[in-house]
């Protein structure tokens, strides 16, 4: 085990996979940084510091710094993957999915199905996402609802440095296309990461982050930490929560959710996205359909409102879920008679 920041766990994992497998290539804006400048290549090494040192180690053939052209980045990742490489593409902010949606949704996601199972497209699309930096409406969004909705795409949302490593390695080795949603606010989070160079976290297996018998809280990404904080506070009052970290939203570990709700009978879902047609509504529907008899109270959803992400500190604070909002939702399910 080594103590690593989330961002370093991501960087190291890609680096190790590039060493292990020549087919792994990286592409994106400023992933080298300093190209065509006096400072020279690697003057930056990626704006999130998730590709520092790659260019020196692997050179321009495998570390491709791109102009500002998200459609071309996304499409090239698809083409590289169809042609036998294992691209790890970075879309600098997940919000820019808007620029390159076609190449993801109509192309990468659908190749295998449309081609009758004859193609393999092992592309990993890294998308730093989420709010918390007052970066306003076009640099703060949670996009899990869009990508989880895409048949053909797998979606990982690591909540810890260990999962950032294990899920990313799994994503790179996986033969299906994967959207990897890194939360920008977690980059500086520290945690133990296994040293094993083959450490993978299999997709579709949730993590039980806290155990308790009164209420189930389902969360992913940055929301897991909020749920844990709420659960720890509630524990002081003798309220026990299962906190289920989904890890991947597609595939979804339905069993983990249903098993927990069968015990607790109460469910709170925490989702950073707006509330319509989201993970929160998806999981609500699942539980209402498959664990109806276990429910002792209405399902509570703690989500962003049906608005874009606002700029001002006060407004972004009001927009985002929080441990306090999660705890209040848990109490509400318990107060239901």
């Amino acid at each position, binding site marked *: 085990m080594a103590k690593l920041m989330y961002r370093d766990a991501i960087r190291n994992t890609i680096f190790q996979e590039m060493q292990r497998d020549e087919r792994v290539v990286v592409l994106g804006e400023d992933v080298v940084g300093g190209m065509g*400048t006096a400072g020279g290549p690697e003057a930056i090494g990626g704006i999130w510091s998730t590709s520092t040192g790659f260019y020196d180690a692997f050179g321009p053939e495998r570390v491709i710094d791109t102009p500002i052209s998200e459609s071309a980045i996304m499409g090239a990742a698809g083409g590289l993957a169809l042609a036998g490489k294992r691209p790890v593409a970075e879309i600098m902010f997940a919000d820019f999915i808007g*620029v390159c949606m076609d190449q993801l949704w109509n192309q990468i996601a659908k190749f295998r199905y449309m081609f009758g199972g004859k193609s393999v497209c092992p592309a990993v699309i890294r998308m730093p996402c989420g709010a918390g930096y007052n970066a306003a409406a076009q640099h703060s969004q949670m996009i899990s609802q869009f990508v989880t909705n895409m048949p053909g795409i797998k979606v990982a949302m690591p909540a810890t440095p260990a999962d950032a490593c294990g899920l990313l390695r799994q994503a790179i080795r996986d033969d299906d296309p994967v959207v990897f949603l890194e939360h920008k606010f977690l980059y500086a989070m520290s945690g133990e990461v296994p040293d094993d160079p083959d450490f993978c976290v299999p997709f579709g297996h949730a993590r039980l982050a806290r155990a308790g018998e009164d209420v189930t809280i389902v969360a992913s990404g940055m929301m897991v930490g909020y749920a844990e904080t709420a659960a720890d506070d509630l524990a002081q009052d003798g309220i026990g929560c299962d906190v289920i970290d989904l890890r991947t939203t597609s595939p979804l570990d339905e069993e983990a959710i249903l098993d927990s709700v069968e015990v607790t009978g109460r469910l709170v879902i925490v989702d950073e996205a707006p509330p319509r047609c989201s993970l929160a509504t998806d999981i609500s529907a699942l539980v209402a359909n498959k664990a109806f008899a276990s429910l002792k109270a209405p399902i509570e959803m703690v989500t962003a409102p049906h608005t874009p992400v606002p700029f*001002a500190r006060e407004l972004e604070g009001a927009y985002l879920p929080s441990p306090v909002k999660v705890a209040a939702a848990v109490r509400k399910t318990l107060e239901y008679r």
Partner: protein
Amino acid sequence: MQLNREALTRAYRQMKLIREFEERLHEEIQTGEIAGFTHLYCGQEAVAVGVCEHLTPRDKIVSTHRGHGHCLAKGCDVNGMMKEIWGSQDGLCNGKGGSMHIADIDKGMLGANGIVGAGAPIAVGAALSNKIDGPDDDGKLAISIAFSGDGACNQGTTFEAMNLAAVTKAPAIFVFENNHYSEHTGDAYAVGTSKDIASRAEAFGMKVWRADGTDFFAVYDCMREVLDYVRTPGNGPAAVEFDTERFFGHFEGDPQRYRGEGELDRLRATRDCIKKFRESVTGAKLLSDEDLDKIDAEALDAIETAVQESRKAPRPQPENVLDNVYISY
């Protein structure tokens, strides 16, 4: 240069206001009071002002993430802008947008933009609207301007917008501000047409101009020709590439390791549009140092007032999150 004293004074005041706005933000951001990402326009003032001094409120502009200069030059209120950057409820956008999303539709300022390359198609739409509205009594069209950088010129949206404008003969002007960097990457690497952006517009069949963006008079004179051309019904769009410089980092907090040794000092010494303007108007005895110093002091005052007001300005309330998603729902 055919500008009278009043016009020169106005142009200098606008450039200076932008400069002081940005220099002050550079200071204020370090205290942590201002939230979010801020991209400063310092160094490029002659472009915004040299372009916008020709415009009327009917003319539209669409800006970028580095939008403060365009906003001020198009007449956005300095206090309203500062308050917006402070996230106040009294800001131009009620604290909803911040630095990257300042807009004032009544002034013909259709928004800064956080998505690189998003502005050009919007500008073409506004130009098409101008075309539908037709020429004024003098037979001239209102126009629409897309400001884009050397990075934005690599987006497909920019190409599509140029072609759409060309085939529809929309009175749009693509103003490319080549400050030689897109974030940390040089134009020598990212702009495939060996650093030349205007030639791309030319390839779409547009008439193009090129000028030194650090020379206000070069920008101003060039824009007069461009505007004459585009305002004439039937001519369609045009493009201009201005060679300019950015004096601060890409965003506030950028360590700028991509710069060469002494680069910033050299740029400040030899490529400062405000210095050049002063030298040129005092040399030609059009304005005196005293005249200009007075404007400098006024600009500093205006910024000081804006900052003080922003500090005291009312903050948004949590329930304001829900305002303005729709008109009716």
